[in-house]
C-alpha cells in the first residue's frame, strides 16, 4: 500500500472536499483550496521520496511490498509512481490557480469544484497505475466524468453548459466506441490483464503461450483485433484531442470556466497519453510483424500538429487559441508515440514532453486566469498594454510562450528536442515527420508571440495596474520555476525518465 500513497492522498482530498462542500461558501473555499494545495505539496514531496525509494529497491522488491490483489491491477513500478506524483502536482497547481475562481466567481458549490479536481486527478493517477483493461477504462472514465462536470460548473452561463454538453456527448460516444473495442479484445483473448494481452497479441511472444492457460493467441492482423485496437485508438484519440477526434476541444476549452479549462488541458491529456503508452506502445505493439495502429496514427499525428497550429493562428480568443495549441502539442507527442521502433528514446521523450507540457500549459493558462479574474474576458485585446499593467504576467507569458514554442533554454525545448530525436533515430527514420514538426514549431512561434506583441507594443484602453491574485500568482511562479529551472537544469530528470522508461519497457 505504501506505494499507492499519491492515490490515497488524492482520494482523501476528494472525499475531504466533498465533506467540506457541505458547509463552505465563498471565501472559505479559497482557504480550502490553499489547504488542498499544501496537502498536495506534501504529497508530492513524499511521493518523490517514495520514488527514490522505489528506484533504490528495484521493481522486484517493490512488487513484493505490495499486496497481491492490488499488484494484479495496479502497477507499482517507478514510472507509474512518477505519473501518480505528477497527477498530484497537477492537482496541487489546479487548487492554486482556481483559488480566486472558487472564492469570487463560483457562488454555488465552490468546494465541489475542488472535489472534482481531486477526483479527476485520482483518475489520472489510476490510469498511470492500471495494468488491467477494466481498471484502465474506469480510471479514464473517472477523469472524463469529472471533466464533464468541471466544464459545466457555471450553471448560469450558457457557454459553460454548452461546453459541458458537447464534451459529454462526444466523450460518451467515443468511450462507447472504445468500450466496444475493448470488449472485442477481451473476447478474442479471454483476458483483461494487460501483460497477458501483450503476450497474446502478435506473433512476437509465442514463447509465452504455454504459461497463459485459457488465453488464446491471436494475430495482430486478425480483423477483429484491428477493429478492437482502432476503436481503442478512437477513444484515446478523443482524450488527447487527436485530429479528427479533436472537435470538442476548442469549444469545450472556450466555454468552460478558465480554471477548469486549464485543468482539462493538462489532466485528461496526460491521462490519455499515459494510457496510450500503456495500451498502444506497451501492449498492442507486437515486437515482430506490423503494428496495426501505427500507420493511421502516423498520418493523424502529422494532421494533428498541422491543423492545431494553423487554426490557432486565426484565433483571437486566448482560451480557444490555447485549445488549438494543445491539439498541436498532442501532435508533437504523437511523433514520439509513432516512433515506436526507438522505444528507448520515445518513452523518455513522452515523459519529458508531458512534464514540460504540464508546467508550461498550466503557466500560460494561469496568466489567462489571472487576467480573466480581473477583466472577465479572454480575447486578445484584453491583453493590450499588459506589460505596463503587470510586468509579472507579461514576462511570465513570454517565458511560457518560449517554452510552448520550443525555444531554448526552456523545458519545452527539451521536450521537443527529445521527441524529434526519437523520430530521427536510425531505427525509425521518420525524417519527414520531424520536418513537419519543426515547420509547425515555427508556425506556432507566430501566434504565441502575437499575444506578447499585444502585451508589449499595443497601447491598452485600461492602464491601471493589475493585482495578481495570490493563487494564480503562485501557480505562475511555480510553473516558471519548473519551466526555467527544474527541468532544464536537472539532467537527472532526463536520466530518470530514461531509466524509468526502460524499467517499464521490461514491464
Amino acid at each position: 500500500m505504501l506505494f499507492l500513497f499519491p492515490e490515497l492522498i488524492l482520494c482523501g482530498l476528494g472525499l475531504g472536499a466533498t465533506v467540506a462542500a457541505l458547509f463552505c461558501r465563498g471565501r472559505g473555499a479559497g482557504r480550502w483550496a490553499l489547504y488542498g494545495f499544501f496537502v498536495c505539496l506534501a504529497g508530492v514531496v513524499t511521493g518523490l521520496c517514495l520514488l527514490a525509494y522505489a528506484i533504490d529497491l528495484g521493481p522486484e522488491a517493490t512488487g513484493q511490498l505490495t499486496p497481491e490483489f492490488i499488484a494484479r491491477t495496479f502497477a507499482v513500478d517507478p514510472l507509474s509512481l512518477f505519473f501518480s506524483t505528477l497527477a498530484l502536482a497537477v492537482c496541487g497547481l489546479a487548487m492554486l490557480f482556481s483559488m480566486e475562481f472558487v472564492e469570487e466567481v463560483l457562488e454555488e458549490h465552490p468546494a465541489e469544484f475542488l472535489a472534482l479536481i481531486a477526483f479527476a486527478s485520482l483518475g489520472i493517477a489510476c490510469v498511470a497505475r492500471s495494468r488491467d483493461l477494466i481498471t484502465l477504462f474506469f480510471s479514464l472514465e473517472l477523469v472524463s466524468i469529472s471533466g464533464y462536470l468541471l466544464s459545466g460548473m457555471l450553471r448560469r452561463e450558457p457557454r459553460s453548459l454548452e461546453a459541458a454538453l458537447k464534451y459529454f456527448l462526444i466523450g460518451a460516444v467515443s468511450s462507447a466506441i472504445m468500450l466496444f473495442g475493448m470488449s472485442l479484445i477481451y473476447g478474442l483473448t479471454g483476458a483483461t490483464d494487460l501483460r497477458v494481452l501483450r503476450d497474446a497479441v502478435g506473433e512476437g511472444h509465442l514463447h509465452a503461450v504455454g504459461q497463459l492457460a485459457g488465453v488464446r493467441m491471436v494475430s495482430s492482423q486478425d480483423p477483429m483485433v484491428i477493429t478492437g485496437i482502432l476503436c481503442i485508438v478512437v477513444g484515446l484519440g478523443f482524450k488527447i484531442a487527436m485530429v479528427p477526434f479533436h472537435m470538442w476541444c476548442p469549444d469545450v476549452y472556450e466555454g468552460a470556466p478558465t480554471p477548469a479549462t486549464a485543468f482539462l488541458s493538462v489532466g485528461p491529456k496526460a491521462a490519455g497519453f499515459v494510457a496510450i503508452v500503456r495500451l498502444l506502445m506497451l501492449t498492442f505493439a507486437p515486437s515482430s510483424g506490423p503494428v496495426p495502429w501505427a500507420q493511421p496514427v502516423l498520418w493523424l499525428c502529422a494532421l494533428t500538429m498541422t491543423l492545431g497550429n494553423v487554426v490557432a493562428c486565426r484565433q483571437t480568443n486566448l482560451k480557444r487559441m490555447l485549445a488549438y495549441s494543445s491539439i498541436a502539442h498532442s501532435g508533437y507527442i504523437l511523433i514520439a508515440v509513432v516512433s515506436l521502433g526507438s522505444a528507448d528514446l520515445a518513452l523518455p521523450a513522452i515523459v519529458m514532453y508531458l512534464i514540460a507540457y504540464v508546467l508550461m500549459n498550466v503557466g500560460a493558462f494561469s496568466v489567462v486566469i489571472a487576467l480573466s479574474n480581473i477583466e472577465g474576458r479572454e480575447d486578445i485585446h484584453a491583453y493590450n498594454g499588459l506589460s505596463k499593467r503587470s510586468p509579472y504576467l507579461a514576462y511570465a507569458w513570454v517565458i511560457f510562450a518560449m517554452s510552448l514554442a520550443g525555444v531554448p533554454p526552456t523545458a519545452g525545448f527539451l521536450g521537443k528536442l527529445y521527441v524529434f530525436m526519437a523520430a530521427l533515430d536510425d531505427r525509425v527514420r521518420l525524417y519527414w515527420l520531424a520536418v513537419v514538426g519543426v515547420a509547425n514549431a515555427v508556425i506556432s512561434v507566430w501566434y504565441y508571440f502575437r499575444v506578447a506583441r499585444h502585451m508589449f507594443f499595443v497601447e491598452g484602453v485600461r492602464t491601471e495596474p493589475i493585482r495578481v491574485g495570490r493563487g494564480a500568482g503562485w501557480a505562475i511562479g511555480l510553473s516558471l520555476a519548473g519551466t526555467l529551472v527544474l527541468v532544464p537544469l536537472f539532467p537527472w530528470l532526463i536520466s530518470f525518465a530514461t531509466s524509468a522508461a526502460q524499467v517499464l519497457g521490461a514491464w
Partner: protein
Amino acid sequence: MDLLSQHAYLIAVLPVLAFGAVLLLGQKAPGRGAYLPIAALAIGTVWSIYLCARIHSGAALPQGRLLWGVGSTGFYISFLVDGGGAAMLTMVCSVALLIVIYSQGYMRGDAHYSRFFAYLSLFSASMLGFVLSSNLLLMFICWELVGLMSYLLIGFWFHKPEAARACKKAFMTTRLGDLGITLAVVALYHEAGTLDLRVIFEKVAAGGLDTPMAFWIAMGLFAGAVGKSAQFPLHVWLPDAMEGPTPVSALIHAATMVAAGVFLVWRTFPVFAATADYALMPYCAPFWVALIGGFTALFASTMAVVQDDIKRVLAYSTISQLGYMMLALGCSALFAGLFHLLTHAFFKACLFLGAGSVIIGTHHVQDMRKMGGLRVKMPVTFWTFVIATAALCGLGIPGVVGLSGFYSKDAVLAAAKVAEYPGEVAVVLYGFGQVGALLTAFYMTRCVMLTFMTSPRDAHVFEHASETPRCMTVPLVVLAAVALSGGWAGHALQGFVEDHPGYRIESAESWLAEHGQATAALEEAQARAEHQAHRFVELVSFGCILAGVGLGVALYRGGPERADALARKPVLALLHLVLVNKYYLDHAWAAFVRVVVRFEIALAFVDYWVVDGIVRGVGWSTLRVMRWSWAFDKWVVDKVVEAFAWAAGGLGEVLRQTQTGSVHVYMTVTAGVAVAGVLATILGSVWVFAGLFGVCVLGAAGWHAALVGRRTV
C-alpha cells in the same frame, strides 16, 4: 548506488541556487541573504560527511555523468568523489559554513550585505564544483569562476582605492598563471584526445604521453597552481588581497582559492609523475614543484617576520604553508600534502577569523603596534587564536601527542627528508622546510605577543576594545576545536584517502611501484627509513619550535621596542629594509608591467594602422555584399516566408470553417472516421478510407446545411 551519492554534484549546485535566490531577492531574502547560503552549505556539510561515511563503508565511489542530450550524442559533465575528494568537500563545506555564519557579525550594517552572501555562496560553489569535477574543462571553468569571485570579493569595498587595486592585482597575477593552465589543457586535449581525467590518466599510466610533452603540460598546470596558490614568484597578490573583508580573506586562505592550486596539483599528479625521471633533473616536474614549494615556504616566512599588519602576517604565513603543501606534493608524498591542506584550512580559518574578531573588537585597527594586552578584553578570541597559532607552529610533544599542525607539518618535513632526490637536493629541500618552521614559530609568537600579550600601547584602542558577538565567537571555538584535535584523525584519514583512490592515486601508485618500491624488502626498508625520518623530524621540529617561540617571547616580552632597536643595527637594518620591501619583488613586477604596457602601446599603433586597416577593408567589402544580400532577402526570402504565412493563415481560415459548432457534425466526424478507419485498415486500402471519409464529411456538411436551412425557414 544510492540516490545521495548519485547526485553528489548537488553539493555544488545548492550554493549556486542560493546565490541566484539571494541575488534575485536581495534584502528580502531570508536573514537578509545570509540564511540561504548557510542552509546550502549546511546541507553540503552533512551531505559530504555522509559521502565520507558511504565511501568509508566500502560503497562504490560516487560518480556520474550528467547528460544533456539523447543517446550517444550529447554534452557530458562528469564528476567523481574519491576519498580525498570527499575529505576536501567536507572541509570546504564546513569551513565555508562557519565563515558565512561568522560573516553575519562581521558584515553587520554593510550597505551591500546580501550581495556579500550571494558572492560567498558562489565562491564556495565554484570551489566545490572544482573538487567534484573529473573533467578538466569543467575544472577549468570552476577554476576561473573561483578567480572571478575572488576578484569580486577582494574588491567588495571597491570604493576603497587600495581594494580596487588589490582585486585587480589578484586577478591579473593569477591570470598570468592561468595562461599556463590554458596552454596545458589545450596541449593535454591535443595529446590525449579527451579532457576526462579518468581517460587521461589511463593513457598516462599506459605510457601514452611522451615525456617532454608531459613535462610542459605539468609545468603549465603547475604555473596555474603557482598563481592560484600564491607561490614564488606570483605570490605578490595575496598580501594585497587583505584589502577585502576579513571573512573573504579567511575563505581565500583556508578553503577555496589557494587550496584550488594545491588541489589541482594533487588531482593531476599522474601527469607530474609521468615525468619523474631523476636522471634528468631539469625535466622532472615534481622536482620543480618541490623546489618552488620549499623555497616559498622559507621565503614567505622571512617576510612575515617584519609585518606589522596582523592580516599581512597571516597572509605571508599562508604563502609559506602553501609552500609546505607543494613541497610535500613535489616529494610525491601525496597524502602529506593533502593532509596539511586540510588541517591548515581549519587553523588558518580560525586565525583569520580571530584576526577579524580583533579588528571588529578594536573598531577597525589592523596595526599590531597599536594593540597589546587584548587577552583581557577578548578572552575567547585570544584563546582560540593561541590554539590556532600553536597548531600552525606544529606544536606537540614528539612521539606523544600534538595539535593538528604537528602531525601534518611533520609529515611534510619527513617526506622532504626521505625524498628520492639526490642527496644535496633533498637536504636543501628539507632545510627550507625546517628553517621555515623555526621562523613560523617565531613570527606567530611575535604576532600573539604584540596583539594579545604585553601591555596596551594605544590606550584609546584598548579602552574601546570588546569581545565580538556570539555568531562570531562560536565559529572561532568550533574551528579552534578542530585545529586542536584534527591531527588525531591523521592515520584514519590517511587510510581513508589512500584506500579509496579515484583514478588519481591508482596511476600514481603504479608509478611508485615502477620506481623501485615494488619488492617487499625494499618497502620495509622504506618504511623503516620513513619511520626514522619521522622521529628525527619530530625532534628537530620540536627544537625549532621551542627556539622560535623562545626567541619570540624573549624579544617581544616588553613590546616591539627591543626588536626595533635590533633592527637598527648595521647589517640587520639592511636585511630589515629588504624584508620590509618584500625583496623588491613588487617593484620588479611593477617594472615588468610598465615594460609590458610600453610594448602594448607600440602594439596599439600596429593595431590601429595595420590590423584596423584590414578590418575596415573587409568591412567595406562586406557592406557591399550585404546590400546585395539584403535585396535578395527582401525580395526573395521574405516573399517566400510571407507566402508561407499567408498560406498557413488561409489554410487556418478554411479549416476553421469545419468547426461549425454543431455537436452532430462533431459526432459524425468522430464516428465516421472511426468506422471508415476500421474498414479501410481491414480491407487494406487507403481509397476505401478516403471514400468513406468523404461520404462522412459530405454527410455531415449536408446535415448541417439542412439544419441551418430549416431554422431559417
